[in-house]
Structures are given as structure tokens and as C-alpha cells.
């Protein structure tokens, strides 16, 4: 009995200290100042040093108040949480952001593929894509122009698969994905815009 109580108390007061500033600077592509700013914001929201899924969803819902962003936040959380332990530490956070904001196009596309591949088996199936699509549409909410119909996500998934699935086997692999994206001009242009976000 006493063991479980102590365990619970330990879990409640978990404190995570990130790696040294220099180490993080070497591992990521941020400067020291940028890391300082990022950490101050991170620690403010999560004094214990780790983000759990609930906090993640709350923070995200404040940026997208019109729709329901919880499903998308869930997928994002799983993508950030690389070691799948249920919490995102500052290192995970920084590594993820480093790829998204300062990485090469290849790395970014890789990260996006990882996001879409919900069960992390190396293939994007139509069901996974449908889930992701529905999550994105939920997040946008009802205030869209033009107004969305019920089966818009499904149609969108069909379009996506037509573009990406080269060998028409019903799944999209990482190579098919990267190849198709690199051929698409719109996507390439969008990728460049991530540079000056921070």
C-alpha cells in the first residue's frame, strides 16, 4: 500500500532537466539565444519539464479556437514523442522543431511521412490518411469557405492517393511520398516558407 502511494507521489513530481545548452545547440540547428527563448516559453507552460498529451492539446486548441483540434494534436503529439513514452521532453521538442524549421526538404518530408503513418509501420494506408484528413478538417471547424460537404475528406484522400501512389497498391511508401512531393511545385514552395518562423 505504501509503495503505490510513494510511486504516485514520485510520478506527480517528476522533474525533467534538459541536456546542457551547448549539447542541444550542437544537436539542433538553433542558436543559443533561440534555444533560450524556446526553453523559457516551454518551461512556463510546463514547469515540470515535460509535456503530456493533455497540455499539448490545450495549448494547440488555443491557437485554433474555431474547430476541434484535439485529434490532430493527438497525431502531432505522437509524432513529437519519438520514444513513445507518453510525454514530450524539451529535447524531443527541440529536435522536432529543428527538423521542421531548419531541416532539409528531405528531412521535412520524412517528418511529414512519420506524422501521417499513424502506426509507424512504414506505409500510409487509406484509412490512416482518412483519419489524418478528418482531423485536419475538424480543426478548421465550420467556418470555411467554400462550405465543406460530408465526403470532402474522402474525396481529398482519393486525390492524394491518385497523386502519391505510383504503383497503385493501395499504400504509400516513404519513397513514393518523397518522390511525388518533390515533383509537386506547390509543396516545394510551401516548404521554403518555414525558414523564418522563429
Amino acid at each position: 500500500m505504501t509503495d503505490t502511494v510513494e510511486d504516485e507521489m514520485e510520478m506527480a513530481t517528476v522533474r525533467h532537466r534538459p541536456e546542457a545548452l551547448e549539447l542541444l545547440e550542437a544537436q539542433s540547428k538553433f542558436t543559443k539565444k533561440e534555444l533560450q527563448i524556446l526553453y523559457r516559453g516551454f518551461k512556463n507552460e510546463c514547469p515540470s519539464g515535460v509535456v503530456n498529451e493533455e497540455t499539448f492539446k490545450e495549448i494547440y486548441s488555443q491557437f485554433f479556437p474555431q474547430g476541434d483540434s484535439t485529434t490532430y494534436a493527438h497525431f502531432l503529439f505522437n509524432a513529437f514523442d519519438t520514444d513513445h513514452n507518453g510525454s514530450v521532453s524539451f529535447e524531443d521538442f527541440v529536435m522536432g522543431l529543428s527538423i521542421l524549421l531548419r531541416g532539409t526538404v528531405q528531412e521535412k518530408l520524412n517528418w511529414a511521412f512519420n506524422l501521417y503513418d499513424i502506426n509507424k509501420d512504414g506505409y500510409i494506408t487509406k484509412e490512416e490518411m482518412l483519419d489524418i484528413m478528418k482531423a485536419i478538417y475538424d480543426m478548421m471547424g465550420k467556418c470555411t469557405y467554400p462550405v465543406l460537404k460530408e465526403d470532402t475528406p474522402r474525396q481529398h484522400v482519393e486525390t492524394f492517393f491518385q497523386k502519391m501512389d505510383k504503383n497503385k497498391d493501395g499504400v504509400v511508401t516513404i519513397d513514393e511520398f518523397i518522390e511525388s512531393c518533390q515533383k509537386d511545385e506547390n509543396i516545394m514552395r510551401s516548404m521554403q516558407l518555414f525558414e523564418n518562423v522563429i
Partner: protein
Amino acid sequence: MAAGVAAWLPFARAAAIGWMPVANCPMPLAPTEKNKRQDELIILNVSGRRFQTWRTTLERYPDTLLGSTEKEFFFNEDTKEYFFDRDPEVFRCILNFYRTGKLHYPRYECISAYDEELAFYGILPEIIGDCCYEEYKDRKRENAERLMDDNDSENNQEGSMPSLSFRQTMWRAFENPHTSTLALVFYYVTGFFIAVSVITNVVETVPCGTVPGNKELPCGERYAVAFFCLDTACVMIFTVEYLLRLFAAPSRYRFIRSVMSIIDVVAIMPYYIGLVMTNNEDVSGAFVTLRVFRVFRIFKFSRHSQGLRILGYTLKSCASELGFLLFSLTMAIIIFATVMFYAEKGSSASKFTSIPASFWYTIVTMTTLGSSLGLQKGVMGAPSLLPFNEQMVGDTQHRTGRYLTLSAFPSL
């Protein structure tokens, strides 16, 4: 929470990677922040105590003094710091609000000083966090009440009352006898006459002396004229008083409906009805009953006695508990009366001829009064009422009776 979330903006923008590959058109440019400065420390000097914080921390709330350009008015060029000639203790709470997003109210602080500081820094008190909001509201209410009380007592001491109309002065005199000597006199006179009226009611029935024929006569009939004169005098006074009160009342309709005025009316009605009615044999019985209502004059004393009024309020506020007591007693009476009736039905000499007839016995027994009326004769009757049996009136029963009564008034 909204304060620090701004720091997560890069993350929110980065998350757009999710829908870029599926979007049909390219992503628009992110809005660039104009005048983007590197974050710098600013020094806030409050009466000598220096606080330091990041500029962006203060800019989280741009509609307050510290978050807007209003603080530039307090910038000291020589020392390159912002100087405020205010209380540093309260400033600590204010700065914590910027840092954490929650405004707290320190208990040791005076409520009006705190309010002044909040007003100076342009912060609305409504955003005080839940943890401190109750305390803040309570203190504020106490303060407001205290101020109101002070104002009232000041007004009373001033003495220069706004001139009231004759009607209003009369009403004040009736309600509060201490306002003027005349009111006090009136108060004592009515009190005296109420006492006289009650005493005459009582003395009327005392037998005093006999007449030839060996018949005892009550004083009321022997000195009928004297008593009649006394009664008339009292009723005159009461009528005059009632009419004067009716005239002076600010809201006549409300006055007529009030309990005290109903008591007044009931106290004087029997006399007038007696005047109007003739000495008819048929109605004289009813007339005698009406005279009983003269005893209500004793309730007029409640205007004179605050204790009596308090008793009245107490009964009124315990009305639900009293009602419940009455209801449960009624239930028990009906149950036991029915049992008694059917138990004693076999016996021919039973006094319980019907269920209502057994009510009286049940009531008398349950209230532990006990009476010799209707002792049970039948075999079954005795055991059924054994707990209440008068032969067993003992400590337990007394205690149970009293306990039942007292437990109905838990709030007293």
C-alpha cells in the same frame, strides 16, 4: 495560460507541415512582426525596490499601464529605468500577474489600498484568480457595508433631518416611540389601556357576591354598567389609534394586510358587532363566542415588547419544522386511534364508539398527559397501546415526548 502560450507560436506554425502535402495551393507567407526587437530586460524601480523582467513579459497585456506605451511617461532617462512612486508590496502581486497570468489577492493587504493600486496599473479586479476571488469579494463587501453604516450613523447624528410631512412624522412617532415625547406618551397610554382592557376581561368573570336567591354572580353582571363604560373607553382609544395609524401609513394597502393591524381590527370588532346586534336569543350564542376575541387585545402588546416580536419571528422561521411535527403527530394519532378502535370493538362497554372518538384518547396519551377517560376494557386494547399506557407513565415516556418535540427544532 494565455500569457505564455505566445511563446509556442513557432511550434504552432511548424505544425502546418501536417497539411502542406495535402493542400491544393501553396501556403501563404507568415505575418512578420514589425519592429521586432531582441528581448531585453527592463528595470522597474518601485519606491526604491528594483524589479526586473523581460519586456515581452509585460507586453503580454497591452491594455494595462505596464504593457502599453503609458509606462514611457515614467521612464527616467538618467538611470534608464522606470520609476513608480507606489507601494512595492502590492507591485509584487501585480508583476506576478504578468509572469503567471493569475492575479492574486494577498490577505494582509487592505482592500481599498489594493483596489487603488489595481486602478493605477490599469488592471481590472475581475481577473483575480479563483483561489483568491472569494476572499477579495468578501472583504470588499464588508468594506462597503462598513462605509454604509458609517454614512448612516453620520446622518443620524447630524440632527438636521430633511423636513418631513405631518403624515410622515406621525408614522415615525408610531413606529418608534423614542423619537419625541408625544410619541412616548402615546405609547404608554395605549399600553396602559391594553392592560386595563385585558384585566377587565378577566375580572368580569370572577364571582363577587351573591344576590338573594343564593346564586353566584360574576362581577361582569353585577357591575354591568361600569364594565361597559370601561370597555367603551378602551375601544374608543383603540379605534382612534387604529384610524390614526391607517392615516399615517405610507402604504395603506400594506398596512391593512400586516399582522398587527389585523390583530387591532379583531380586538375591536366584537364591541361594534355587539352594538349593532340586538339582544336576539338566536344570535346571542354567537355573540358570546365573539367576545372571546377580545382576548386578542393581549397580542397588541407585541408592539410594545420586542421579545414578543422575536418569539413571533422564531415561530415563523421554524414554521416548516413545526408543520412537520404536527403532520407526524397526526399520522401517529390516526394510526393508533384506528388500532384502538378495532381492538376495543369487541367489548360492548367500550367508549371508543368510532375512530374519531378514539382520537381524543390517543392525543391525550401520546402527549403524556394521561387521562382516566376511556380506559381500555378489551383484551387486545391493552397490549397495543402498552408503550403509551398511562400506568406506565414514567421517565422514559416523558423523555421520549420531550425528545420528539425538541428534535423538531434543531435550529433553536
